């Protein structure tokens, strides 16, 4: 979706603010929101692409005025409510108002280390052949899906060079909507600064994205 999250090349966001000796979390609620989000991934049954879409799928003015952990937390509420795991009444009252919905599994304290260490690799076996190879010229397609995508607006319609064939990876555009992993070949595509930002842009700048094959066409 062309939402508030797609920030590359946009203007007016003000100066960069650095914080010396920044703590990992800035408030206790941030810690709990972070941990709840990680822990509920198991019983919730959603995937990372669904989480990202739940965070970005809101009016841009809201997205831009919320902090990172606010985006995480309200996305968590959304995903829990969509799956009937909690209700608005329960959040308002602060207590469970009915029996739990059966879930496949939860995250026990004994599993935390192993679950984090394993992570969620997204590379998949395939019997297909990659359409492009390193050095090929490609163009990012002009697409404007209202659903989740990982093709940023600033490269759409721009020509670049395949730098690396990464492998076959879960395709977020499918995975976010529940349509399955639909693995696709993934490439690192490098663009010249002036191709992205126009004549006169710094020619010493190159920008790359990682793009799945359905985002690309030969140039």
């Amino acid at each position: 979706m062309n939402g508030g999250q797609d920030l590359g090349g946009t203007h007016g966001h003000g100066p960069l603010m650095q914080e010396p000796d920044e703590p990992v979390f800035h408030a206790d609620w941030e810690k709990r929101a972070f941990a709840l989000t990680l822990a509920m991934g198991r019983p919730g049954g959603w995937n990372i692409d669904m989480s990202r879409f739940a965070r970005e799928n809101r009016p841009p003015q809201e997205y831009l005025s919320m902090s990172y952990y606010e985006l995480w937390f309200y996305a968590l509420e959304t995903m829990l409510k969509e799956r009937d795991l909690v209700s608005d009444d329960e959040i308002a009252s602060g207590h469970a108002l009915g029996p739990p919905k059966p879930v496949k599994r939860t995250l026990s304290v004994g599993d935390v280390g192993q679950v984090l260490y394993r992570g969620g690799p997204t590379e998949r076996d395939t019997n297909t052949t990659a359409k492009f190879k390193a050095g090929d010229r490609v163009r990012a397609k002009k697409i404007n899906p209202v659903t989740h995508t990982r093709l940023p607006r600033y490269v759409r319609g721009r020509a670049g060079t395949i730098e690396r064939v990464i492998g076959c990876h879960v395709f977020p555009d499918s995975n976010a909507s529940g349509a399955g992993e639909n693995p696709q070949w993934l490439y690192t595509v490098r663009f010249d600064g002036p191709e992205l930002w126009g004549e006169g842009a710094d020619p010493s700048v190159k920008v790359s994205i990682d793009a799945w094959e359905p985002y690309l066409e030969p140039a």
Partner: protein
Amino acid sequence: MSGHDHDDHHHDHDHSELSETELRVRALETVLTEKGYVDPAALDLLIETYEKKVGPRNGARVVARAWADPAYRARLLKDATPAIAELSYAGRQGEHIVAVENTPKLHNMVVCTLCSCYPWPVLGLPPVWYKSAPYRSRAVSDPRGVLADFGVTLPKDTEIRVWDSTAEIRYLVLPMRPAGTEGWSEEKLADLVTRDSMIGTGKPKQPLEPT
């Protein structure tokens, strides 16, 4: 709003908003715990892991080893995920890591314009600026300007390569080893490696700077 006679309106407003979210987080944790969906001890361990165990000191050890051991450096640049796992760093948000090396002719810098993808096992959770709109918007269109904000100036003919983390590949910058560190131990070298130098928005400390 609380209705106090408050002259600092903005502050009061921020405070009320935070409190509302804080109350909702507490309420949700209670509901999820009562329903048996979460184990509060697991939540505590998740927090402790990212506050105390997983952070940029991990990445600094990787970089220091690459500086000290040419064979390790070669493995890291060829396939970073197993090379990093040699030091027991792996997993969530670092399932597929690529290390990119700075040289006198090439400077690498990492961003995620679409959210805040970041190599957790080696750098921990991202700082606020990395997740912020000012960084995510400008890193791809004006990286030299962003670097200047970080106090980093590069020769005009140094190529700047920005890696926008749009997929599940996570990038770790291997900064240049500071001069004057010949023969240093890995431990001592690791003290020179800053978080920002591994994102590409900073340089390592120099041997004479206080560490």
